[in-house]
């Protein structure tokens, strides 16, 4: 009797501690939100104190300083196009890689997988020279191509292992009915790829939206800059001002965060499923 009571209380206590532990992970966010709504003088007086008055002034300020409207549109455009390009090119490639089991196709597959462990830093300098020679610096197309190339290994890996798990019977029946490779892919394979595509898109959208290096190096034109680049160039490491930093940080993550609140279930499932299958 006493032991069950003890077990129950300790179990509840554990849950409470667990909730508190988890809360510390979001505490920096809550702190960020509250601080960005306070005035600079108020924060300077007591960083952790209760806000005396709330203001949206910091947000409007940051909005203008990081050219938010323009840069958010740029980021959205680049992220959207990259996602589209990666899914199209990646899914097309994975069909033959999964179905044609010849020597050369295994080789091509291995070559793609090799790319998963190549850091972008290794190719960034020669890539810069290449883009300069191809006249693709400062263009959305150039950045989208780069994102496609560096994310293809992951896309090929995801899609190929998924297509391999689809039984071939359906395709054979379609082939006997006179379906070519094109029609088979678009009418049979592609619709089946939907779940793995949402996983992949979660992964890619996060990568591209949040990336700093590629737009920093390949987009010099101020009109084409992304949110991350503008936010980065706006910080001054010597005077860390929370009331200017935090609104900028929140504005940078807001669109993506909003999307993920709606797609929450897919995001969590996707992020963990994709990893464990490997």
């Amino acid at each position, binding site marked *: 009797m006493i032991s069950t009571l003890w077990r129950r209380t300790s179990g509840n206590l554990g849950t409470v501690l667990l909730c508190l532990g988890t809360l510390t992970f979001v505490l920096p966010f809550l702190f960020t939100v509250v601080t960005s709504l306070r005035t600079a003088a108020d924060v300077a007086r007591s960083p*952790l104190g209760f806000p005396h008055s709330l203001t949206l002034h910091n947000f409007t300020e940051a909005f203008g300083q990081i050219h938010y409207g323009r840069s958010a549109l740029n980021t959205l455009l680049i992220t959207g196009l990259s996602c589209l390009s990666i899914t199209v090119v990646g899914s097309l490639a994975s069909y033959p890689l999964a179905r044609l089991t010849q020597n050369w196709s295994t080789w091509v597959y291995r070559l793609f997988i090799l790319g998963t462990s190549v850091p972008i830093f290794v190719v960034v*300098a020669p890539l810069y020279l290449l883009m300069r020679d191809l006249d693709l610096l400062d263009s959305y197309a150039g950045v989208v191509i780069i994102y496609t190339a560096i994310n293809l290994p992951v896309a090929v890996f995801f899609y190929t292992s998924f297509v391999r798990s689809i039984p071939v019977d359906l395709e054979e029946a379609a082939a006997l009915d006179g379906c070519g490779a094109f029609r088979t892919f678009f009418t049979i394979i592609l619709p089946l790829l939907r779940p793995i595509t949402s996983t992949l898109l979660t992964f890619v959208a996060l990568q591209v939206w949040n990336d700093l290096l590629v737009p920093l190096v390949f987009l010099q034109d101020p009109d084409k800059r992304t949110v991350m680049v503008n936010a980065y160039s706006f910080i001054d490491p010597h005077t860390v001002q929370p009331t200017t930093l935090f609104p900028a940080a929140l504005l940078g993550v807001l669109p993506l965060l909003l999307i993920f609140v709606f797609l929450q279930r897919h995001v969590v499932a996707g992020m963990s499923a994709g990893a464990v299958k490997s």
Partner: protein
Amino acid sequence: MFHRRRATMAAFLLPAIVIYGVFMLYPLARGVYLSMTDSLGGPIANFVGPEQYRAMADDPAVTAALWHTVLYAAVVVVAQNALGLLFASLLFRRPKVRKALSVVLLTPTLVSPVMAAFIWSYLFAPEGGINALLGVLGLDSLQHVWLGDTSTALYAVAAVNVWMFAGYSCAIFLAGYMSVPTELLDAAAVDGASGWQRFRSVEWPMLAPALTVNVTLSLIGSLKVFEFPLVLTNGGPAGATDTLTMLVYRNVFGGGKFAFGIAVSVLLLVTVVVLSSATSSLLRLRERRI
């Protein structure tokens, strides 16, 4: 008929091969070549053999950066996976709160490294959140210039990395937990095994594949870390948080030592490939033995 079909299928590979070949494999090969030249990024480049690598070996900044990178990765891999595992095993035992809390834990993962670094640069600032919190708690003696002291800066930067990705490790461990057969857990419970015993002899071995994935992912991720040191410390104080990626960036885009920077990037590639393949094959071996 099937022959033509196969040819059409093979043609599906073309866009991927072209993009991957031209914008990934070719720059990779060119980078290895350029690291053996005296290139400044312009059209003129003379082949000089392993000259840059010799200069790299003599440069204490490179040795220090390599050490920082490896130390940083070790701290992140251990701390992030330990935290992730702790949360996952606690959450696994509490199905009621599992879902909600795992979503909460994942939110930092959705933030960009730049923005995470923004937030923490203030929290770590001398007059910032952490020192203020310590003051409120009456722990003034623990107050510290976290990012400005050579002995703490690297760990402070690593802590931000851990904060951001511990939830991700937790999600992967939780997915691993879901593959543990319930009969096994029930059998252990019937045998009267304590919580710790159940973890030690049933769950931990069953989590081996999840551990392999987690360690490999966090290792590769932390070896290529860039935004955190860039935004939080810019390599300082006194180079204490200079990593290989920081050296590559600085030399290639501003140092005037283009070929040298590329040679450092090749060193980074070798480090990542050697460490990650050694770790993952060791962990795979372990999986088989269990």
